[in-house]
């Protein structure tokens, strides 16, 4: 009896499921028909009347007022110039570890209902493109006369995966050394002579440090603060993170040297005392701005923020290198991508082009004081002309690196950050830790 009952329940459930699936199929079938009808209808309408504008869903994760306003202004200009395309700009809050819209976008693409164009962290493009999440833009770019040399080399490298273009590079930045001129003068250093070699940097850092009891009042320099990632120092020390074959070389002897040098700071000043300074990242406390560190590696965005501080006298200089020459930096930035599955690839590309090499890029760069990946634009911005500190960035862009554009970019980033953190806490030697990173990432890459 019991068996019979269970059987009946199963039969019932199966019937219901079948009914539901039939209903669902029916739904999608009819909606497809409908949309077909609609497009047919609109085509016929086109001939008779005005064209119905194509609606592009555009997602961006930039929530702060300046960036948002500039993006929306550019969208307005685009919509006016292209009455047949209507861009619906939507702010979608970033989630994850500051990489912009990630989990929401994966879900949307998987669900078959993606936005048509997205402002996306360029660093992640290779990884996403390798998973098949983005449309290949190579042909469209060629057809509309986009050339590689319109952009800085690092930007186009980051937007390319296996020789195909998957993103249109938008804004960019690179890292430099910021130093507090007032503190330099107080410590008896020449405010116009920032450190150029690592040895000078160490010496200045010591001179600039002030202690009060067992608490530091001012730390001269913390290598890993703000933008002092292992990437910054690895390249500064002459290392390379990837070889010709595409294999990751995280344990390059010069990168190991860079990390060993970083650990000397952890030992000398005490890792916990320094972490107190550098762990303020979550809040909006900027230790350099607060006058708690005298030198810091950071990007161009600091300039706007430091303007708000009264009488803050600071300078920008190259990131010191062991030899005091061959200065370099590394660059990141955002880009426009077209998710797989959009209906309006061409229109979306037209908008992406407008935002990256045309008027949209000019508006954004000028209004937000960002550098753009499109080389020729940067010298035209008013803020660049009025800001002497902008020059060093433009000078450094051609010799800037991008993080290796590999399908496991995020993993390499996290592993390097973790290895640095461990080395600083004395959990293993830099060599061992970086060997492990190298082995792990290369294994994931299939080497």
């Amino acid at each position, binding site marked *: 009896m019991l068996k019979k009952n269970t059987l*009946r329940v199963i*039969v*019932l*459930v199966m*019937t*219901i*499921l079948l009914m*539901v699936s039939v209903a669902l199929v029916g739904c999608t079938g009819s909606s497809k028909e409908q949309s077909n009808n609609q497009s047919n209808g609109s085509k016929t309408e086109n001939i008779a009347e005005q064209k119905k504008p194509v609606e592009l869903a555009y997602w961006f994760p930039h929530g702060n007022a300046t960036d948002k306003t500039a993006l929306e202004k550019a969208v307005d200009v685009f919509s006016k110039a292209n009455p047949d395309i209507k861009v619906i700009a939507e702010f979608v809050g970033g989630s*994850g*570890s*500051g*990489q912009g819209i*990630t*989990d929401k976008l*994966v879900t949307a*693409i*998987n669900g078959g209902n993606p936005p048509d164009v997205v402002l996306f962290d360029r660093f992640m493009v290779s*990884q996403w493109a390798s*998973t*098949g*999440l983005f449309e290949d833009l190579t042909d469209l770019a060629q057809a509309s006369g986009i050339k590689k040399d319109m952009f800085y080399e690092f930007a186009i490298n980051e937007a390319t995966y296996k020789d195909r273009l998957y993103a249109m590079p938008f804004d960019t930045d690179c890292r430099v050394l910021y130093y507090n001129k007032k503190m330099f003068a107080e410590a008896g250093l020449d405010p116009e002579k920032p450190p150029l070699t690592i040895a000078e940097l160490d010496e200045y850092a010591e001179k600039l440090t002030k202690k009060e009891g067992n*608490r530091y009042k001012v730390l001269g320099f913390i290598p890993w603060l703000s933008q002092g990632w292992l990437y910054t120092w690895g390249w500064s020390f002459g290392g390379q993170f990837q070889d010709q074959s595409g294999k990751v070389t995280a344990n390059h002897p010069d990168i190991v040297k860079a990390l060993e040098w970083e650990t000397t700071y952890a030992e000398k000043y005490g890792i*916990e005392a320094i*972490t*107190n*300074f550098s*762990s*303020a*990242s*979550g*809040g909006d*406390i900027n230790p350099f701005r*607060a006058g*708690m560190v005298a030198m810091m590696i950071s990007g161009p965005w600091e300039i706007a923020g430091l303007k708000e501080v009264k009488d803050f006298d600071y300078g920008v200089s190259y990131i010191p290198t062991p030899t005091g020459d061959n200065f370099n930096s590394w660059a990141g930035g955002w880009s426009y991508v077209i998710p797989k599955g959009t209906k309006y690839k061409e229109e979306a590309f037209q908008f992406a082009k407008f935002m990256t090499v045309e008027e949209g890029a000019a508006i954004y760069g000028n209004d937000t004081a960002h550098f753009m990946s499109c080389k020729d634009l940067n010298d035209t911005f008013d803020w660049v002309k009025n800001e002497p500190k902008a020059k060093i960035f433009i000078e450094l862009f051609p010799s800037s690196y991008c993080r290796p554009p590999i399908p*496991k970019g*995020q*993993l390499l980033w*996290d592993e390097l*950050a*973790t290895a640095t*953190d*461990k080395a*600083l*806490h004395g*959990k293993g030697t830099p060599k061992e830790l970086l060997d492990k990173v190298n082995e792990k990432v290369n294994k994931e890459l299939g080497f």
Partner: protein
Amino acid sequence: MLGVKNIFPNKNKKEVVGWLFASPWLIGLMAFYIYPLLSSIFYSFTTFNGITVEKFNGIQNYIDLIHNDVFWLSMKNTFIYTIIVVPASLFLGILLAIILNVKTEGRGIYRIIAFIPTLAPVVAVSIVWQWLLNSQFGLVNYILYKVGLPGPPWFGSELWSKPSVALISLWTIGTTVLIYLAGLNDIPKNYYEAATIDGAGVIRKVLHITLPLLTPVIFFNIIMGIIRAVQEFTLPFVITNGMGTPANSMLFYSMLLYKNAFQYFKMGEANAMAWIMFVIIMALTLIVQYTSKKWVHYMGE
């Protein structure tokens, strides 16, 4: 209707109608619980990257995890945190509940004060505490410094990072206290009256009446507390910006799971992690359940 009659020849209409009425719920259960659950098991045996299943992988995901140091580290971190936070919330929860149960003027206000932190969104709580516990600029260490005590490095050190998270978690203990309060009010007054007549003091009453009769509620809160602690995600994720610093001491199990799924696109491995977690929670619950026979007392038994 003919079809229904054929399937259920001996059934009365009432039962059929009953099933039909239950069907929206059944369909929901199938679509939103059973189907994801089963597909998650399936994906845990594949190299699913979030978009496509590249190949069937057998138990390779599980083997990879077992050989992965970071996996074990995240497991260790989560359990250390659980061991700190569950007993602490047990003790503090009962203590607060007993205090808030004392009949005084303005008892309602005290109860509200104890409950209010629970209403703040977890992300906001994390950010505020990140500021408060900042060892250099934070208010807590500033006060300690003024009093002349050495301020701990909180999130800056491996030793203190997990207790710091536990502290924040204890700050939002309101719901737990609420359940204890309900439990306290269930204890009949005449037990206390009898004890008073026998000359028992406050402490003896708590030890011999309150605690034994509160054990069913304690039992419930322990299980819920373990589940909550093992799944802790938001606090360490927001505080460390998803990095699990310092030295991976705040890389909790769910954080690693999230990273695998959405940052490394290793959805298959993430699914495997979810099932391992399920088994662990199940085992812990069964252990607590088994021991409960010895220490949980239900009234009337």
